[in-house]
């Protein structure tokens, strides 16, 4: 087994709503090895998205810790956390989350501008061409279809060659043809970049493509299965 890229230990997350405290994650422990593709499954409200948010450093756990490439990220100050997110984690969202006022190319270039400051134009163009959008680089998100927007988001997630890519239902908003195309692209990029991929999905067919499946229920891991090596 390769060394752990993601280490999750005793992770809990609860939110207060008035007098009630809702426990979303009740104590999660698992590690993800470098280069592994993990699918996180579970019904609605099981805590999938919350877990993904904590892995990405988008939120702070109530207790427990998340380490990315050996660095504990859970309690970092906001600006340091932003750097970790920018350099170590790529993100693909269900609803694409492109900046509406930037063109496709500018959206892909944005992580460069935010994190490296160097000229990433060639890399951004290359990635956009590789996802089939070479001719639509100057289009704004509103001028692109859902599938095209998600392909821009994939290019953006990989542009800085992050060691970890997290995806939240990346095909959830797409029809099956577009969904398949986007998934193929995502997996292809993951393979060529040797990235660790964690994907939240409730589609068993997609999960079947992953090397490992983690099943969540009511904030707890109820199953953690690895695909038999063929």
């Amino acid at each position, binding site marked *: 087994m390769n060394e752990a890229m993601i280490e999750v230990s005793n992770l809990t997350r609860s939110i207060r709503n008035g007098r009630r405290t809702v426990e979303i994650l009740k104590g999660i422990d698992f590690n993800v090895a470098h280069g592994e593709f993990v699918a996180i499954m579970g019904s609605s409200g099981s805590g999938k998205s919350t877990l993904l948010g904590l892995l*990405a450093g988008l939120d702070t756990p109530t207790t427990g810790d998340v380490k990315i490439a050996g660095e504990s990220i859970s309690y970092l100050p906001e600006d340091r956390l932003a750097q970790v997110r920018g350099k170590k984690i790529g993100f693909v969202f269900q609803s694409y989350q492109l900046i509406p006022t930037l063109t496709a190319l500018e959206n892909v270039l944005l992580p460069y501008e935010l994190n490296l400051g160097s000229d990433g134009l060639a890399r951004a163009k290359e990635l956009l061409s590789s996802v089939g959008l070479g001719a639509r680089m100057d289009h704004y998100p509103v001028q692109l279809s859902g599938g095209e927007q998600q392909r821009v988001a994939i290019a953006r997630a990989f542009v800085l060659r992050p060691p970890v890519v997290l995806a939240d239902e990346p095909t959830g908003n797409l029809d099956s043809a577009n969904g398949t195309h986007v998934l193929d692209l995502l997996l292809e990029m993951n393979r060529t970049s040797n990235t660790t991929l964690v994907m939240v999905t409730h589609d068993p067919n997609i999960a079947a493509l992953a090397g490992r499946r983690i099943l969540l229920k009511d904030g707890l891991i109820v199953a953690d299965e690895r695909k038999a090596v063929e």
Partner: protein
Amino acid sequence: MPSLSWTSARRIAWREMRSSKGKFAFVILSVAVGVAALTGVRGFSGAFRTELLVRARSIMAADLAARMFAQPTPKEQEGLEAMEREGLHLTTVTEMVAMASAEHSLDPLLVSLKAIDPAVYPFYGAVDLAPKAVLRDVLHDNTIVVAEDLLIRLNLKVGNRVKIGDGLFTIAGVVTNEPDRLSGSFAAGPRVIVTRKGLEDAGLIAEGNRSNERFLFELPARSSDQQVAAWKERLVALLPEAQVTDYRETNPALTQGLDRATGILSLMSLVALVLGAIGVAMAMRAHLQQRMDTIAIMKSLGAGSSQIMRIYLLQTILLGTLGGLLGVTMGTAVQRFLPVLLRRLINVQPPFTLDWRAVGTGLTAGLLTTLLFTLPPLLDIRKVRPILILRRAVEQTDEPIHKAFWARLRSNWAQLLATIVILLGLSLIAATLSDSAQTGRTFAAGLGGVLIALLAAAAILLTVLRRFLRGAGLALPSAIRHGLANLYRPGNPSAALLAAVGLGVMQITTVFLMQQAVVRELRIVSSPKIPNIFLVDIANSEVEGVRKVLTSQPGVVAEPELIPVISSRITNVNGVGAKDLRLTNFPRRMLQSIQLTWSDELPPGTTVLQGEWWKPGTTVAQVAIGQRMSQRLGVTLGSHIVFSAQDKPIDAVVAAIIKSDGQHAYSRAEFILPKAPLQGFPVVWYGGAHVDPKKVGQLERAMFAAYPTVTVIDVAQALETIRQVVLQITVVIQFLSAFSIFAGMVILASSIAGTRYRRIREVVVLKTLGATRSRIATVFSIEFAVLGLVAGFTGVIFATVVARFLQRQMSIEFHLPWITDLAMMAGTAVMAVATGWIASHRVLGQKPLEVLREE
């Protein structure tokens, strides 16, 4: 650490602005209206004030005057020459009493002679003549211009000759208006104006002649109030025996009018500024609320808060600058076209000059307030959690209010710091605008206090509402329940909106109340009933007869005022003899000619500043002394002044320090005693009456026929000038305050309207569930009406308190404006509902699917 380049930040900022043009136009308009009100009010009032000050100067014909009873010493002369070299212009006016007679008659007449240099006199204003002519063209060393009274008394006409001293002068015209008539001496006899050379040729300037010299000074153009004060101070030091006055002291009504106009106009400027700032803050807050998703996405891509702030800071600067430029253009247009609009109401036409200082102030103030007031929403960027992209749950605590307050305070320390920075910044801007650090501090402190009180009121209201709905919720009709619940639902900016609208209402109401109070006061002093002719030298036996002549004249429109005068001198103050007294800006020689008068009642137009007026019939020797005179003599309440009339001492205690409005016969009296202690002394009476200016000649003839020794001094024209100026001040104050109030309402309405974007989602969901437009409109109306009523109530209460405080500062009587207050409260609720409707109109019409597709 690498960071987003300014170019990229600018690109994103600009693209965002381009993508929501309508919304940003709103923000720009808020800034623009505030800056326009500021630039317009400041620019116009500045030009108007300058123009009015020229008129005020014409009352004295100069910027500064020094009255002396002796020629300046060589050292003083040297000092005056030094001042002339520094740009001060000087001319001398000599006033004296002399005898005049017609060329071929031996009947002499006492005249009030005034010698001037027609080449430079007057520095301000003009001597109006009949037949129409320019003074310097007709007044030569062998000619004179005279009051009509002289022609009546000597039965002469223009072109005839008059003998004065050794000189023979041709009458070149009749004086219909002498600008500085009110500043000169009220000596007996008709006015005769002669050149200085003519006076010398007549042999009237000789040792021992009782003449008084007035040195008139013209300061370099555009001298500020501070420069005038500095020149005055130099003159007081140079001429210790002179009585030095500046143009602001010539007429209390005018001075008061100008001071109050200045006060209220700078209040309006500040209010316009803060209202603009409120508009900006609310608009930017609404804007950033909608950028939450974008901010969260950028954070998830690795952007730090400071990088994102850079984008929105640039946007703010751009909005502030664009709003500022638009505002300055609008303000300049107001300044340009206001006089045209007001042409029928006021005859002052300030020349239009682009006041770069007002433009610069407007732009800077606009940008600075935009930056200051967007600081809290900008700092909120730090709190945007990137998890927002995945989960929109809003965490809420249910801690007791005081614990929640301290918790919020701890987590919001940066906001607290921002608030302090805002208050400091505002106080700096206020100090710059009002030229007084004290005003700046008071304004900022007041604003801070009111803001805290308003936020507290908002917190109390929301808590009470929540408790009320918990208890009686389901018993209420659902539209009311929904409308009230809207006020405290998570994410609704009710508290901020309540504070903003409350603050705005407070400021608008304060301007309105102050404007009403100031205008009410100015109307009293510009009343058309005040005396505009004065009668000099009425013997005790003639008093009743003179009163009858006056009341029988058709031109006399108000009850004549007659006052007794007893000539005396001051021999001792608080045990110190006259020759050893320390006098300030008061010639020692004048201690020898002190005029005493009596009154058992407080005379009309006189106010007691310190001490108390005596009870009628008192026999105790006490004196009420004019405020300025008390300072010159160095006396206070309880001081003893020993007067001597006919060599009989009167030891009087200072019982009151008084101030007159300068508009009545008693206004020239500096020493008023009760009647009893002055009985038995020889008395001369002086009088005043208000006469139709066109009928003054008729009155003079009637008075001359009945009492030839009584002199009539006509100041109708001079007083009419003052009255007109004061009336014009009131018109301008009313107009500018209406403009400020209108601008304020536009800004407040835009603040309320700015919340419409956050309602789109709610409207769509309600519509999807089957709610009709009218039902949604009812829910919104209830929400806005409650908001408007509470904001109106709080704002009006504070405005009343502030107005009371300011009016006390300005010595204006306070009346509880309950009708205005009630109207403002109701008006705020109506405005809130109306704006809410107008703003929600488009939202209500939106198809649900359009919005849901964007989700």
